[in-house]
């Protein structure tokens, strides 16, 4: 990610500090039904050159957080800095740009006209033809926006975001509504842009996207950062492996209960669940040890060991937002 490119972003100056610095950020909306707190206190620092996925379910506060990062909404409390600048200043000086989920386009302009219009708002925009080519829109240049598919319109928003040659690129669910091919093409283009040294922050609820594209994943749920680390760290922290087996049918009710209690006390087991048929599932930090106990000591059968997927990690993390933060750098308010 340190590759420089002639038309890449201006090399981040050390004095700039972090690309993104969010401090105790909160946002409360007033609605007819009362006050709704979308963001409850987010602290996040992103260094120049990082590619960060903000992962979370709908309503987690991702879009609100990105809106504050871009200066589209003012925080209720806390502070936002982008390369040491206030967000509106970072936008005005073309340091940051974004692809928004709900960014509207004018349907009666052509693709090229839209790019020219947005280009005219910058002092030194990238050449229109160059941006069209990078977003794969050269062949669609003279098509009306209203005649473009959802994926094509999304590529147009992406082209607009490339115009300022930003140091930081923010993407809010950039592939929502794209089919598989369009999604793959989009991420290939994004890889090329990240390789130019841009800092990239994207929100997604597609786990595979976060896994494949990001260096770092920030999991957000209920307006808080609940986990922050590399993809591998997030996966291992949350669940480890799951060991499943069927207990011997010969066990009495009391014996079965004793067995489950013993399993729960096992140092290698994080959680133990059982159904009426006698099938147990143990989320294990040491799956070998748990498997040995099940097969040798308990005499269970039909044993299987499943590596925790990022999905499992995600579900485990987001369904238990009351658990202690998994990262030492996470703020204290999270352990409510």
């Amino acid at each position, binding site marked *: 990610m340190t590759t420089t490119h002639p038309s890449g972003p201006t090399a981040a100056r050390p004095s700039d500090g972090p690309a993104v610095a969010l401090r105790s950020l909160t946002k409360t909306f007033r609605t007819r039904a009362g006050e709704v707190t979308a963001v409850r206190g987010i602290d996040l620092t992103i260094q120049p050159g990082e590619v960060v996925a903000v992962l979370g379910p709908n309503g987690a506060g991702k879009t609100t957080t990105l809106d504050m990062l871009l200066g589209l909404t003012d925080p209720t409390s806390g502070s936002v800095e982008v390369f040491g600048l206030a967000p509106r200043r970072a936008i005005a000086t073309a340091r940051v740009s974004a692809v928004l989920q709900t960014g509207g386009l004018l349907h009666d302009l052509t693709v090229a006209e839209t790019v020219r219009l947005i280009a005219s*708002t910058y002092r030194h925009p990238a050449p229109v033809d160059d941006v069209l080519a990078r977003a794969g829109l050269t062949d669609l240049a003279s098509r009306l926006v209203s005649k473009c598919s959802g994926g094509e319109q999304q590529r147009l928003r992406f082209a607009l975001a490339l115009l300022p040659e930003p140091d930081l690129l923010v993407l809010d669910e950039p592939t929502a509504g794209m089919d598989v091919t369009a999604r793959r093409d989009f991420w290939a283009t994004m890889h090329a842009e990240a390789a130019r040294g841009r800092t990239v922050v994207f929100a997604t609820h597609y786990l595979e996207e976060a896994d494949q594209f990001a260096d770092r994943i920030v999991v957000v749920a209920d307006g808080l950062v609940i986990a922050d680390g590399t993809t591998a760290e997030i996966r291992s922290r949350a669940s480890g492996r799951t060991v499943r087996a069927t207990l011997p049918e010969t066990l009495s009710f009391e014996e079965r209960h004793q067995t489950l209690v013993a399993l729960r006390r096992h140092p290698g087991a994080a959680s133990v669940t059982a159904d009426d048929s006698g099938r147990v599932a143990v989320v294990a930090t040491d799956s070998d040890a748990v498997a040995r106990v099940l097969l040798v000591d308990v005499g269970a059968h039909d044993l299987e060991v499943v590596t925790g997927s990022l999905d499992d990690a995600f579900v485990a993390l987001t369904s238990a937002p009351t658990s202690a933060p998994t990262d030492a750098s996470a703020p204290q308010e999270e352990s409510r």
Partner: protein
Amino acid sequence: MNTTYLGLEVRRFVRDRASLFFIVALPAFLYIVFGATQDGSQASVGNGNVALYIMLSMAAYGAVTATVGVGGTAAVERMQGWGRQLGLTPLPDLGFVVVKATLAVLVALLPVALISVLGALTGASGTAAAWALSLLAIAIGSVVFALFGLCAGLAFRSEAAVSAASGMVVILAFLGNVFVPLSGTLLTIAKFTPLYGYATLARYPVTEGRLISNDGSDLGTDPLWVPLLNLGVWCAVLGVVAVLLVRRGRARQ
């Protein structure tokens, strides 16, 4: 000003044939019905005749309809996400308002030009100075109503608000002494409404401020500062409100 943006806006407007027709043709139609065919239109008024007086009133009304429409459409378009897209660019909020207000004035020139041609063909007459200054006042003053349309659309956040604003224009036009000459209390109230300042300024080169009445009684004259102050205050108020509302339009709706 961002001329690239303005140029593309003009192109968009020309593509929209339906609104083009209504904005240009409707006020001209109203002038033909209410103005050109009335009796006594050849009677002299100041530096022109009654036909010119009515023609200028209708041209002002046409310009207001056009600018309120453009302003209102701009507001709706901002709310449909374009405001967020522009919020990602260095374009200042005032820059957007200036582009849209300029577009509105350019669009307003179309009905004004058509009505002027029809007026000249159907007996409106006056001194060259009266014609030139009146049309200039109509063109420049129409910017106030672009801001009015923008504010109405942005404040109430719907297409219905734009229709309501256009409906308001009819009421304001009556209050503004545009359709029928007012007198008494109504005239006193009228002097505080924006179309009064606009129409009075537009007709000033012809009437030199003398108020026209239905029955020929003398209602006195408005000095030039009356319409100028009226328009100046409305322009400042609506301009500030428009920029503030545009700022709000960056957030999700």
